[in-house]
């Protein structure tokens, strides 16, 4: 009977499913689960955080941020010096560093890499979108004065130039490989980093292997596999089941649940980020400072931290994160005071002739960001808090990219946003996010805040190379900004990632740089 034979086959298949042993895990391979895949592996085209996580392990830069601080330390360059006018920087390269393809790093390779990043019509650019190019427009010319000596000539002195060279876009790439692969370089990257590229199946797995010849010494893991798992609940389940070893970008409350699991550890670190509420100061009613102050007074940051961050964040007073150099510790935050808020709002309403309750639309991104793991919880909190003082809020979430475009165009009333440091410098927050130079359809001064004095201070801060003279400039700017309330700083988060307790020495970086060089499995010799 065919039916009986079919049944037999089915049963034997089921038995096979039960008896065959599960595929075994490779011993010294780290599986890293995150929310999204990399978009490219070419440093000049990268922008998203998930892309950067991979690049930091594939490439080295001339100088680098220290393990757990924003200090600049030597990397591919062992020494550097600046001319007195601050326009000429000379870098001495480390002797015999090899790219993953076996070619050597020399002055020409450095010039090749940096020119690819900054030049308008560079022949080796295969994707013309270079988000970080503007940060390097300050470079006028690059010259090799010896096989291992590179001279950068700048158009004007810059306090942030060195920090910018430590950022991922300035990663040094193998010219041989770029020329050989052309377009394919973004999927066959060759750098000098602690891990070399092995294979990439988009949206499934990205495999890196240890670089045996890394100048800092071989990393501990034989392989690192990055897997994108978009649902955080799925990442959690895979972590608990042992299918992945590290999971990041998880909702804070879920992390607390995971921390109770004996086999898991939660790594923590401060982060140099800030979440804030941007207010469109060009349009009524938010052009009225009383309305903006009323909004600031209506938000109970401690309650927000409890509800939307499960307690794992610190209230922010200034745009600059407290952990960063330049933060003004002397400013005291406005207290949470709904009554004062209502009074202010009423006064503004009487003056400007609008009726209460006021209706405002709140722009919010639909995906988590490092400074806001749960945007919708924050949005709901802002909505309910403002409802209590007489502002009805409507919420329209958008995918993050469209959300940011909308904010930059000034096409909003109030909007949730935030920033994570690129280079650890106050300029990267205050100038990028609040200087009138950055008011445009693609500028990050989303609140369109204009204050001439702040503008002068920020420009002076960019050119001043002496930290002791720079500090007062930034302090004064922060005081002015606090008084004008163009934004309401909400919180700085604590970054956390859950990993199996087998992993040792896994350290997070305040700028959220994920570098897997030092981490290892405790039970692998």
């Amino acid at each position, binding site marked *: 009977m065919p039916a009986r034979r079919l049944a037999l086959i089915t049963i034997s298949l089921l038995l096979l*499913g039960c008896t065959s042993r599960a595929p075994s895990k490779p011993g010294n391979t780290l599986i890293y689960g995150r929310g999204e895949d990399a978009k490219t592996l070419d440093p000049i085209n990268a*922008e998203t955080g998930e892309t950067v996580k991979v690049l930091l392990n594939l490439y080295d830069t001339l100088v680098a941020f220290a393990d757990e601080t924003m200090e600049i330390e030597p990397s591919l360059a062992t020494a550097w010096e600046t001319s007195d006018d601050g326009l000429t920087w000379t870098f001495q390269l480390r002797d015999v560093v090899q790219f993953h393809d076996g070619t050597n790093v020399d002055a020409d390779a450095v010039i090749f890499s940096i020119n690819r990043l900054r030049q308008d019509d560079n022949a080796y650019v295969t994707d013309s*979108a270079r988000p970080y190019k503007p940060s390097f427009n300050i470079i006028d010319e690059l010259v090799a004065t010896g096989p291992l000596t590179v001279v950068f000539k700048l158009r004007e002195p810059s306090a942030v130039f060195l920090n910018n060279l430590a950022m991922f876009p300035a990663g040094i790439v193998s010219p041989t490989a770029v020329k050989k692969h052309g377009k394919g370089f973004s999927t066959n990257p060759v750098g000098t980093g602690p891990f070399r590229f092995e294979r990439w*199946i988009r*949206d499934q797995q990205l495999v890196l292997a240890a670089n045996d010849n890394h100048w800092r010494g071989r990393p501990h893991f034989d392989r690192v*596999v990055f897997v994108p798992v978009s649902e955080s*609940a*799925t990442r959690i389940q*895979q972590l608990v089941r042992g299918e992945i070893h590290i999971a990041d970008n998880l909702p804070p409350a879920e992390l607390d649940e995971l921390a109770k699991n004996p086999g898991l550890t939660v790594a923590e670190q401060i982060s140099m980020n800030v979440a804030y509420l941007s207010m469109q100061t060009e349009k009524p009613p938010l052009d009225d400072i009383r309305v903006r102050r009323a909004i600031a007074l209506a938000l109970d940051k401690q309650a927000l931290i409890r509800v939307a961050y499960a307690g794992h964040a610190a209230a922010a007073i200034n745009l600059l994160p407290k952990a960063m150099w330049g933060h003004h510790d002397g400013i005291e935050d406005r207290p949470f005071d709904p009554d004062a808020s209502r009074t202010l709002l009423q006064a503004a309403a009487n003056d400007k002739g609008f009726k209460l309750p006021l209706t405002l639309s709140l722009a919010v991104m639909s995906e988590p960001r490092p400074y806001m793991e749960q945007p919708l919880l924050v949005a709901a909190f802002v909505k309910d808090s403002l409802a209590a003082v007489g502002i009805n809020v409507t919420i329209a979430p958008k995918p993050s990219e469209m959300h940011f475009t909308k904010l930059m165009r000034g096409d909003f009333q109030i909007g949730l946003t935030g920033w994570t440091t690129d280079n650890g410098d106050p300029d990267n927050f205050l100038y990028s996010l609040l200087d009138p130079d950055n008011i445009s359809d693609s500028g990050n001064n989303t609140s369109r805040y204009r204050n001439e004095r702040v503008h002068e201070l920020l420009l002076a801060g960019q050119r001043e190379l002496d930290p002791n003279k720079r500090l007062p400039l930034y302090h004064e700017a922060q005081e002015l900004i606090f008084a004008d309330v163009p934004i309401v700083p909400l919180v700085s988060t604590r970054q956390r990632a859950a990993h199996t307790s087998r992993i040792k020495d896994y350290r997070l970086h305040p700028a959220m740089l994920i570098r897997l060089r030092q981490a290892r499995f405790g039970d692998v010799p």
Partner: protein
Amino acid sequence: MSGFLLRRLFHAVVTMVVAVSLIFIAMRLLPGNPLVAKFGQHPDAEQMQRIIHEQGWDQPILSQLGRFLHQLATTGDFGESISRSNENVSGELARRIPATIELTVVAMMLAIPLGVAAGITAAVWRNRWPDRLCMAGAMLGVSVPVFFLGICLRAVFTGMPIGFRLPAFIIDFEPITEFYLLDTLLQQRFDLFATACRHICLPALALSSIPMSIIARITRSSMLEVLGADFVRTGRAKGASSWRVVMRHALPNAAAPIVNIAGFQIGLLLSGAVLTETVFDWPGMGKYVVDAVRENDYVIVQAGAFVIAAIFVSANLTVDLLYLWLDPRVRTS
């Protein structure tokens, strides 16, 4: 009959061209441009202008459409993704379509036999408890949304793997056809085959619930109709066992409407696959296209739309052929 086929084929091609053109135009009319995804929080107006010009997005939509259709017809290539640097969309689709088809086929392999079995059971024991049980189940099956069923299945079967077609730590598996269930068998990796089966279980189960229920109901009603027909009654009168009557006489005659409805389920299944892939992190075409809609990635969306329309249209053609072959009335006429 070949005239009929040709006409159907012609209709199918026209349908697809129009459908893809509509999607192409719709995507261009969406607010925002795909570059915002590339630049994120670090946009640069100057570069963005240049790229828009280079890509020809500042030209009239119809001329863009013309170029796209010409490129598609001459090279068969969809071009490169916008938000993902230098990604060849055809290559990506070639990996993701099998994932979706595998999921859909396994879901149908669950839905058809179980649905038909439930339908026959219900018809044979009409108005008795097996009938009520099966039909209540079918009613529930069409009512619980895939995305809630997915959450329930995950909560109940905590031991089952979710997300991906194989565990993330398998790095030595080189697929041949991209149908993992097939590839693991071809490579005689039985351990991987078993694992792949476990991975596909929950998503396929979630996806199968609605078609299974519909098939059960159709089978029941079409069996009831046939069971009341003369030749079945004659068969019974001649002393054939009721099992034999059902399997040999009634079922083949009830098959045509079942096949028809199973074909119609393909559109429904693809819709369901979009949601299922999202809930279960299944790296298929549905998730790919949904993510691309979010990122405004024209190239991926129009390629995905083309492929989905092609699958749907060819599935319908196949169903028409099967229908011709199965239904004696159509065959002889």
